[in-house]
């Protein structure tokens, strides 16, 4: 049986940031998914969620759980990334100061998502949505 869940993520709403990832983590725990797999999904989803809150005009996270894999899709409403290859480099960040003061903006999020995932896709360009797919096999 497949499970599908969807979460709206608001831009700049730091008080709610992380709620979707927290909820996804709880759902996966209820499904009895092994802890190490849950952690990889939780961390990469949280990075994606924070990126939508910090860098985008808002977006959505869709969770799909099948017997074989867990898939997280993060899609936002833009403004997109000019140079995706550069954004994927550790240490590259355009995060403003107030985000750094909250302990983020080290430019580690995208590479960390890739490391946590079995499959990772990103598609983005300036003026367009950023779409990220994270897959972890069960």
């Amino acid at each position, binding site marked *: 049986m497949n499970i599908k869940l969807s979460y709206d993520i608001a831009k700049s709403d*730091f*008080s709610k*940031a*992380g709620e979707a*990832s*927290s909820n996804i*983590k709880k759902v996966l725990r209820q499904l009895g998914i092994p*802890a190490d797999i849950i*952690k990889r999904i*939780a*961390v990469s989803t*949280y*990075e994606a969620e924070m990126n939508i809150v910090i860098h985008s005009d808002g977006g959505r996270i869709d969770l799909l759980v099948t017997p074989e894999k867990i898939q997280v899709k993060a899609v936002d409403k833009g403004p997109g990334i000019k140079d995706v290859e550069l954004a994927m480099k*550790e240490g590259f960040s355009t995060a403003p100061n107030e985000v750094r003061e*909250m*302990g*983020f*903006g*080290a*430019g*580690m*999020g995208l*590479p*960390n998502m890739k*490391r946590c995932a079995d499959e990772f896709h990103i598609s983005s360009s300036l003026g367009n949505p950023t779409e990220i797919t994270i897959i972890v096999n069960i």
Partner: protein
Amino acid sequence: MNLREIQKLLDAEVLSGEEYIDREVKTVFACDLMSDVLAFVEDKTLLLTGLVNPHTIRTAEMMDINAIVFVRGKMPDKETLNLAEENGIVILITKYILYTSCGILYKNGLAGAEIVHK
């Protein structure tokens, strides 16, 4: 070492999760940058930090970190503490600075956390 011993060594106060004070801790990670906690830490470790906001708790939650020491006497707000309670995360606060807190724990046998080697 359990959290009760850590509380004594750091002369710390327990603000959340008193009921879990017997939890064992094997390693420590100290950092004010949550991006790095998310990217580097492998262990289920104790987090020492001076960064006090709800995202510190969220980060710990995602990482399966179940105890945090806030250093330099930094007092978390209600929202931060509620989130910790909800997630069964133990919160200690100590007046010692990060360097001194680490020194005390290291001297008493607690090692650094395993990290992802870059």
